[in-house]
């Protein structure tokens, strides 16, 4: 398998000549991989996708696909399928004509076209819709047609630009699974852009997190969630409690951090953490558990209960703890035995391997 199927080398992009939208991107994508570019709007993820599609040219650096440089290849010669946010189905063509369009452009014979169109529609479970107009379809159906159109000419790579952004939550989750299955079945490369972190975690082999034109971290969903490289990733992917402090001791990957109120937290040391350094400790709300008085654990603290919110499957507590007013704790509803009373002192704790100390930028 080609480990460098898609390769960005020192790619920079500026629209106005003064500010860079993408600054110094180095990125390799393996063949058959499902890569998601995740980030807030204006982070450079869409620009990266547009450069790969051929709609934007990099200001510096080079992009190659399958070993050949493609920066100067026009979009229509790149043989890359693309699914757009608002589907971009041609309104003056029927569904069948839309799906046949890329084949027609490639001079495929008529009999082959109708065969491949119907098998592509079969694949997205839209068989029999050939003669409908796009305007007669629902959003989810239009998205399936757009998928069929991007896949029918069997491209090596399919780009998706927030393709599910216009769908409602349930349909979106359903389509996520369907796209994932299609990817697994066809074995093609997918580069997917989204600002929805749960979508990124659900679907991808690897996720690249963008902020401010810089690729902050690229890793598997598991690693991204468990080992965020910096504060931005820790805050953007999933939820995290953030407690500032100072490193007082570091040993074998574990460090001790003193918080402003004098407590000490044991945490996994992130990259570049040494003594002394100002850091933040990040810990996920669902990793915090209730502790009984007298329990001896590495990280065990007591705080005042400020708020309780019931969510059905879980309960959220807001605690005044470690000098931070809004420490969130997420407890499974089944783990709660006695009712909480506001203002009471609650004992909580977490394991050192469940929290990380990250350098404050």
């Amino acid at each position, binding site marked *: 398998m080609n480990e460098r199927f898609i390769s960005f080398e020192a790619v920079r992009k500026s629209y106005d000549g003064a500010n860079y939208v993408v600054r110094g991107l180095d990125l390799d994508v393996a063949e058959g991989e499902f890569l998601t570019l995740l980030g807030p709007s204006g982070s450079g993820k869409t620009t990266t996708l547009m450069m790969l599609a051929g709609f934007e040219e990099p200001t510096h650096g080079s992009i190659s696909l399958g070993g050949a440089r493609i920066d100067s290849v026009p979009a*229509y010669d790149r043989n890359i399928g693309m699914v*757009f946010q608002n589907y971009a189905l041609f309104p003056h063509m029927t569904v069948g004509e839309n799906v046949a369009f890329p084949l027609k*452009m*490639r001079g495929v014979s008529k009999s082959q076209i109708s065969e491949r169109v119907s098998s592509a529609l079969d694949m997205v479970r839209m068989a029999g819709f050939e003669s409908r107009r796009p305007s007669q379809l629902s959003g989810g159906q239009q998205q399936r047609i757009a998928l069929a159109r991007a896949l029918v000419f069997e491209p090596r790579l399919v780009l998706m630009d927030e393709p599910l952004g216009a769908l409602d939550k349930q349909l979106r989750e359903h389509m996520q699974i369907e796209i994932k299955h299609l990817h697994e079945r066809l074995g093609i490369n997918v580069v997917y852009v989204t600002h929805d972190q749960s979508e990124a975690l659900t679907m991808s082999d690897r996720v690249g997190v963008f902020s401010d034109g810089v690729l902050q971290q690229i890793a598997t969903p598991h690693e991204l969630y468990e080992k965020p490289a910096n504060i931005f990733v820790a805050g953007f992917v999933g939820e995290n409690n953030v407690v500032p402090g100072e490193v007082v001791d570091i040993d074998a990957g574990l460090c001790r951090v003193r918080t402003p109120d004098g407590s000490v937290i044991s945490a996994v040391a992130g990259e570049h953490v040494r003594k002394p350094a100002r850091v933040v400790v990040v810990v996920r709300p669902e990793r915090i558990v209730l502790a009984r008085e007298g329990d001896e654990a590495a990280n065990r603290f007591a705080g005042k209960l400020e708020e309780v919110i019931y969510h059905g499957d879980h309960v959220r507590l807001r605690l005044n703890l470690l000098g931070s007013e809004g420490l969130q704790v997420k407890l499974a509803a089944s783990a709660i035995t006695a009712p909480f009373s506001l203002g009471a002192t609650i004992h909580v704790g977490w394991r050192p391997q469940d929290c990380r100390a990250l350098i404050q930028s």
Partner: protein
Amino acid sequence: MKYAVTFAEKHGGEEQSTLARQMARTKRRAKLQALALIAPLMLFLVVVLVLPIGTLLARGFDNGDAAALLPRTAEALSAWNGQDAPHEELFAALAGDLKEAAREDVAVLAKQLNYHDAGMRSMFLKLARKVRTAEAPYAPSFIEVNEDWSSPRYWRALQQVMPSVTDFYILSALDLMRDENGDIASVPPSTAVNLEVLARTFTVSASVTVMCLLLGYPLAALIARSRGTAANVLIVLVLLPFWTSLLVRTSAWVVLLQSRGVVNNVLAWLGMIDPEAPLDLIYNRVGVVIAMTHILLPFMILPIYSVMKGIPPVYMRAAASLGARPLSSFFRVYLPMTMPGVSAGCLLVFILALGYYITPALVGGPRDQMISYFIAYYANQVTNWGMAAALSIILLVAVLVLYVIYNRLVGIQRLRIG
């Protein structure tokens, strides 16, 4: 009403009828209010549009009241078969009528008779003078004025003007007439001009429409792609001609295009033409098409631009990502998506061009005058309201036919203007 029915099922007939009556009253009141609101506009339209146009068009079928002026002749002519030699009864009837008729009415009738038989006007007036002093038998005094009175010729002309409604003008406008047997036939080629004028009107309008489309489409695309100041400046440049008088713009073309005009001088200075043999750019078809294209161009650009503005660039990207080269993505994706604007612009320009009058009159030659020129000619110069109305009817019908064809092909609901 559906609500009233379900309500009735629950509460019985009595209450239902009360409720239905109440609802009907409310609806009626709302309808009356709406009518009252548009009443001033309706009145305005009827007074300034429907009535004048209707009366003008009616003139195309109006044959005057010759039968009232010459009642005895009308009766005698209805007994005559149109083939036999005229007998004394006819002569006596016409002579008797002419003796009693007012001079002004006879003059009007003579002019109308002239349409049917050229040269009949002065002859008929002379006859009217002569007959006043004549005594029975009348035939010799008629034949003394013109010996054709003894043949059916002039009597047939009289027969034509007797009915109060006629298709004479409409037929003439289409180069047709009624022959001796009353059947529709073509007029002799020497007098057939109207069909040619009609064909010319359509040819000029079609050429102007094509020119406007060829020039306007790329410009509309450029404006739709431009942003900010550039787009505003371009729009103003397109609209600028609207703020100048039509007459001024047309006269400006005379200055530019005449044989010693700006265009010819520049070409001669560049050595591209011989100064002694300047190009004929004006007082011919070329001048008419150039000037009309310039004047009608905004009507093509604006509808196309408004449609283009609504097409997001993502469609062109989608086409490119699917492998369409720029040319095929233009012809297969962009052009079809702009068709509502293109057809609206073409329809608008074509229909406006059909009725153009001033521009061809100023920059065209005698063989470039369009149907409006002849309508004005008949209305203003020779006061033949019948022919003016008939030509107007033909123009109106042509526009309606176009409209119907457009509706069949494109659908009027897809029309987008401005």
